[in-house]
């Protein structure tokens, strides 16, 4: 099975361009964050606010807002380039473009960026891009340098349509789960001292964002684990075997389940729930790096 070198090269170019564009977007978000004034009460309208039958009057954007909008536009452009890079990878290798760590990381980050774009549409929180995008950019950078792997076919055990389903679902849901981690950290900051962080959205909005994103990703993550179990039954002879990756996926699942329960329990709502979400974020990243790179297990071939 030959690899198309031309497409592989285009894919690498697009990947680098996407990184550059994201970097610019972060700078623009930073300008907006730095030069805008702390929002008044009006901008804090969340879904829990009194029922809105009257639309708010539109105001002309200030100069710092213009920067923010450019940042958002660049984020979208970056996502398009990023998507193009993945597609080219797939074309060049003639398979789903998530067959090794580099590609997996790329898909995961794309999912995170797309979720961020969706959140920007839904909530008035564009300036948070300056906090949300950098971790993603770091992951992309590590993916493109430390974990980089040439476009190539995969080994026999990965030749299955479950590669398409299981790996994409797991990687997309893990990517989406990065965001509530960041917003939960911001929530904890805002909740500790609202005056010190006047430019952050209200704790309520941050909490809502975390919850909505988690609720979206959690069933997806569950489905991903179950798809993995079905594949493992066909490839390794058992649907569950406490392989390190399986174990940490289980731990991640339990933590996010705890988050959902905590958020519905008096006395655990708010700070405790946010901490749990941050713990989930930590285990998620740990799973991404440590389990694949340090321990050896059946999932190790997803490595370098």
């Amino acid at each position, binding site marked *: *099975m030959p690899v198309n070198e031309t497409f592989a090269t285009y894919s690498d170019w697009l990947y680098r361009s996407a990184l550059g564009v994201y970097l610019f977007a972060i700078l623009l978000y930073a300008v907006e964050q730095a030069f805008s004034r702390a929002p008044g009460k009006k901008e804090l309208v*969340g*879904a*829990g606010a*009194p*029922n*809105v*039958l009257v639309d708010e009057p539109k105001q002309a954007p200030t100069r710092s807002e213009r920067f923010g909008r450019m940042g958002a536009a660049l984020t979208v452009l970056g996502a398009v380039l990023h998507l193009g890079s993945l597609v080219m990878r797939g074309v060049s290798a003639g398979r789903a473009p998530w067959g090794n760590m580099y590609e997996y990381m790329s898909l995961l980050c794309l999912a995170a960026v797309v979720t961020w774009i969706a959140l920007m549409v839904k909530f008035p929180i564009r300036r948070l891009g300056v906090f949300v995008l950098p971790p993603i950019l770091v992951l992309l950078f590590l993916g493109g340098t430390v974990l980089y792997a040439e476009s*190539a*076919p995969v*080994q*026999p*055990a990965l*030749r*299955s349509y*479950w590669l398409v389903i299981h790996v994409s679902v797991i990687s997309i849901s893990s990517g989406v789960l990065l965001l509530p981690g960041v917003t939960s950290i911001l929530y904890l900051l805002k909740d500790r001292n609202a005056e010190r962080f006047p430019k952050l959205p209200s704790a309520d909005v941050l909490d*809502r964002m975390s*919850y*909505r994103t988690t*609720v979206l990703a*959690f*069933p997806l993550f*569950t*489905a991903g684990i*179950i798809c993995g*179990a*079905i594949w493992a*039954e*066909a*490839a*390794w*002879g*058992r*649907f*569950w*075997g*406490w*392989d*390190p*990756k399986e*174990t*940490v996926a*289980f*731990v991640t699942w*339990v*933590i996010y*389940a*705890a988050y*959902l*329960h*905590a958020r*519905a*329990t008096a*006395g*655990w709502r708010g700070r405790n729930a946010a901490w749990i979400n941050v713990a989930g974020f930590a*285990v998620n990243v740990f799973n991404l790096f440590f*389990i694949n790179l340090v*321990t050896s*297990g059946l999932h190790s071939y997803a490595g370098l």
Partner: protein
Amino acid sequence: MIAFLRNTWRGLTSMRTALTLLFLLALAAMPGALLPQLSLNAAKVDEYVAEHGWWGELLLKLGFFEVYATPWFAAIYLLLFTSLVGCLLPRTWEYFKQMRARPVLVPRNLSRMPHHAQAELDVTPDEAVERARKVLRGWRTDTGDGTVSAERGYLRETGNLVFHFALLGLLVSFALGKMYSYEGQVIVQAGGGQFCNGGIFNYDSFRPGLRVDGTELTPFCVEIGEFSADYLDNGQPVGYRAAIRYQSGEDIATNTWRPYDLQVNHPLRTGGDRVYLLGHGYTPTFTVTFPNGEKRTQGIQWLPSDQLTLASEGATKFDPPGITDSETRRKNQIAVTGLLAPTPLLHGTILSSKFPALNDPMVAVDVYRGDLGVDDGRGQSIFSIDKKMVDQGRLQKVARQNLALGEEITLDDGTRVRFDSVNDWVSLQVSHDPTQGYVLAFAVLIILGLGVSLSVKRRRVWVRATPRDDGRTLVEVGGLARTDQAGYGEEFTRLARAVLNEERS
């Protein structure tokens, strides 16, 4: 006493306890990913314990190398399990009560609700109520005197209960599976080798569930035909396949064989068991011609020592024929050991392999003669000779040479050892798990339940129509989402506009 039990039960089934137990479960599962586990790699565990001294010993005693079989792990999930049951029972009861209950009465002050709208309309209160009922079609409604209470999203609780009960079902099926499942590995020669699932002794290694004693294995036989592997130019395998024939169930009585193309990711499923193609390697065949002219031909699997090039090491052992005196026989046993290179690469006389496929394979062999030590009752590896016999001088190296196919060595006593051919072997895994179908069914229910319970919102709408002195009617609409508020605003706005006929207050 009863009070104590009741308090314990209440404490155990409270959400706080459940959350703590969830954390403990996550925490307790972690060592299984960080430390080597006996069930996955026993050799690594020994190594770890040896390296870490008393600390390793302590971890071993506390069961950290078999986390998922320890009492403390079991204690956590059993408590969680009990807590879950204790939480689910009253909720189920509550659920059925609610399914029959009417929507709650209209609150006195609707403007206090999180969602609220009102308007004065030119209709009678009855007409207003009628319109509201029409708008709220599909909701569970209850009409009072000039009021409508409506509630929707009961599926949320349904999904929630389905999810939790499915979780219980999954755990029970999983536990039962551990009791009645078995798993065994065996190496079979390609090109006609057979394996029959008749008993544990047919396996190279076998792992039974707690309730499996090996007497009632599913009867079936497989015969391995031709094996083939494809490789990339760099030696990376692309695919393995073995053409096999099998018989199970009634086919055994009629001796009917059915063909199957066994591949990685495509196990053979027959009679409730699954047969997997795990890996492959090579079997060199040697013929030893003894001084008296008698020949013995042997082919036994060698073990790949390099997974990329499939350079393999092993020991093919021969007994001299026609010697009845065991003492003499033991002094003249022969072992051919060494390295097999599927695609040879020679540095002078040093042989190595450069590719995993067979291209004029060569072997670099050491031939030993003497007492192999196979008769002393101890088991020994089929892949190597007993080094102790060599150290004691009872087994001597009598030749060392590289052989291509068909070449032979002549030993000092006239014995000749010829390298005849190389065949493939495959390693198979047989797995039996009677409950995995149930596990899958419950897993699907888990996803469905989870999806429903996290996407459906339980929400209420109330309408009150109050007649005014001027003949008009004041219609108020109030709304409350009982769980997650987010996203209810838009739906409420739409409903309120329809009820109030677009006239804004």
